[in-house]
């Protein structure tokens, strides 16, 4: 009988940031205002050297979450077994609170795009993704979480909105959802849907984590660049997400034009304040 990898909402870790090389020394040299860190899995699939040294020291100090970018869960290529071996090895080393990747495809015909390419939301894609998530979860011996990506195209033959597809993948495969609030906002602007409808369409108990990041306004579209502070409309959407999903581990991503660490801490503190205020608002209603 296959193991039960049904997604159970993991414990609330608090407020984290993505660990980036620019901040290694700062983070390891003293206390921070950060509760937990997310690592990009692929950056630590190394045989040795500084990446693994940093990883070891981080693991001793903070809860860690592994976030991948190359699982290519929606690709029609076979799952990359060598990649899965590396992921399993890394998980054994890190003992992460959970493991996540993206609901997308990144490769086809054996070639890697190194980009998070959107899927058509069809019954065929759904069955394909669900089977592969189940296979990955078997390899890892635990459920994973999948993140919604920013997108600039929509497929004409998609049959359901993205949020319904994401929810159905989670339900059928028993995986969690990493809800990227900025990605919802970027895609909503690019495709003209209501971001609040997205939040309403995602089951409350399936969401393990939120991502927040900055984007760039290119005039005709928004681009998910992770090189700015979180935009005000995204903070508003985050507040709506906390109202809907309750206490949810929240992470700030900043990948380009990376500022001093205290700037990230300030963004994380802002998320903490919004999260705390909304939960405090909601508390009496829960008691009643």
């Amino acid at each position, binding site marked *: 009988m296959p193991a039960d990898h049904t997604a159970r909402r993991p414990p609330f870790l608090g407020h984290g940031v993505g660990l*980036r*090389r620019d901040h290694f020394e700062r983070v390891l040299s003293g206390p921070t205002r950060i509760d937990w860190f997310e690592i*990009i899995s*692929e950056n630590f699939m*190394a*045989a*040795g*050297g*500084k*990446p*693994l*040294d940093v990883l070891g020291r981080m693991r001793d100090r903070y809860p860690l979450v592994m976030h991948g*970018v*190359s699982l*290519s869960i929606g*690709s*029609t290529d076979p799952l*990359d077994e060598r*990649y899965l071996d590396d992921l399993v090895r890394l998980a054994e080393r890190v003992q992460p609170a959970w493991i996540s990747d993206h609901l*997308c495809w*990144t*490769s*086809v*015909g054996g*070639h*890697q*795009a*190194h*980009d*998070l390419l959107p*899927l*058509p939301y069809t*019954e*065929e*894609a759904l069955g*394909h993704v669900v089977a592969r998530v189940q296979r990955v979860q078997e390899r890892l011996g635990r459920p994973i979480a999948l993140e919604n*990506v*920013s997108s*600039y*195209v*929509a*497929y*004409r*033959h998609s*049959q359901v909105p993205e949020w319904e597809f994401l929810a159905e993948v989670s339900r059928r495969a028993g995986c969690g959802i990493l809800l990227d609030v900025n*990605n919802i906002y970027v895609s909503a602007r690019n495709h003209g849907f209501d971001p609040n409808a997205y939040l309403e369409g995602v089951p409350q108990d399936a969401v393990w984590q939120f*991502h927040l*990041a900055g984007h*760039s306004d290119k005039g*005709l*579209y928004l*681009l*998910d*660049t*992770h*090189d700015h502070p979180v935009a005000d409309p995204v903070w508003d959407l985050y507040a709506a997400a906390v109202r809907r999903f309750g206490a949810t581990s929240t992470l700030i*991503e900043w*990948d*380009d*034009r990376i500022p001093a660490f205290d700037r990230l801490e300030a963004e994380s503190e802002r998320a903490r304040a919004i999260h705390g205020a909304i939960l405090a608002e909601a508390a009496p209603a829960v008691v009643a």
Partner: protein
Amino acid sequence: MSTAFGLKRAQTFFWDLITAPEGVRPGFEAMLRRVEAGPSDLDQLIEGDERLPAADRLDIYANMYFYRLLDCLREDYPRLFEACGPDRFHNLVTDYLLRHPSEHPSLRHLGSRLPAFLENHPLGRECPVLADLARLEWTRADLFDAADAAPLTREELARLPQETAGSVRFALVPAFALLRLAHDAPRLWTEMKERAKAQAAGEGAGAEPDGHEIHSGAGMAAETCRLHAEGPAVDLPRFPRRDTAVRVWRRGFVVYHRAIDAEEADGLELLGAGEPLARIAQRLAAGRSAARATERFGRVFQGWIDDGLLAGQTESD
């Protein structure tokens, strides 16, 4: 459900369009000419509108595909980028990605075939030292996260019985490589580093970082676009052919390299092949008096120990 685009066909078509070197629209027109697509396929696959037609939406991915990989290669080959200048590097990467699209889930491996590719590329034929510079840079990048190993110390060496020392075989640490180049690329590398250091001092900039962030969490990276800026014309370096052996190694978290003479290179090669110490001493002694040979072997071998090249004893005869 019945659609013209099954998942595999949709992904293959998408991929072909975003990686077409001339861009999405010309790429699609070329596919039509080759009868690999129908005239309505693009609009049947991707929803477009007046604001952003389907081809423009795919162009966002096409641009990011190229510039993300260009940026990665620029990070792996900073000196090669500087030696070529932005325009030549851009064209080199365009040709390289057409011939060697990424096949590994990690971007870390993207540049592994660039030195060999460059050697046979028109740019490499025009300026042959560039391929050797690329070899040196790739090896340095490759050793940055190679496996760790505790290096053999002087104290451990001193404990070896003198009478059997000649039959001892040592292993090299995993973070070691020996290069045999056709040009003095280390000299070019040093000249460029000194120039960069002087420039940075003038601008008040800090030291160069070790390694770089390979993957980011963003689907798209804005940083990549900065490379597209036109740079000043760069004169290619002119280095005559000169056989040069280089040892490259990592000590702690820092990668080093040093040009060495042919005898030391042969000695390291023999050591890496598992030959005993006596055979290595013999190679290093070639043509020298006994006293000079002893002095030479002692100095070279001590250098290997001090630089942490030896991982330990493997076996004795």
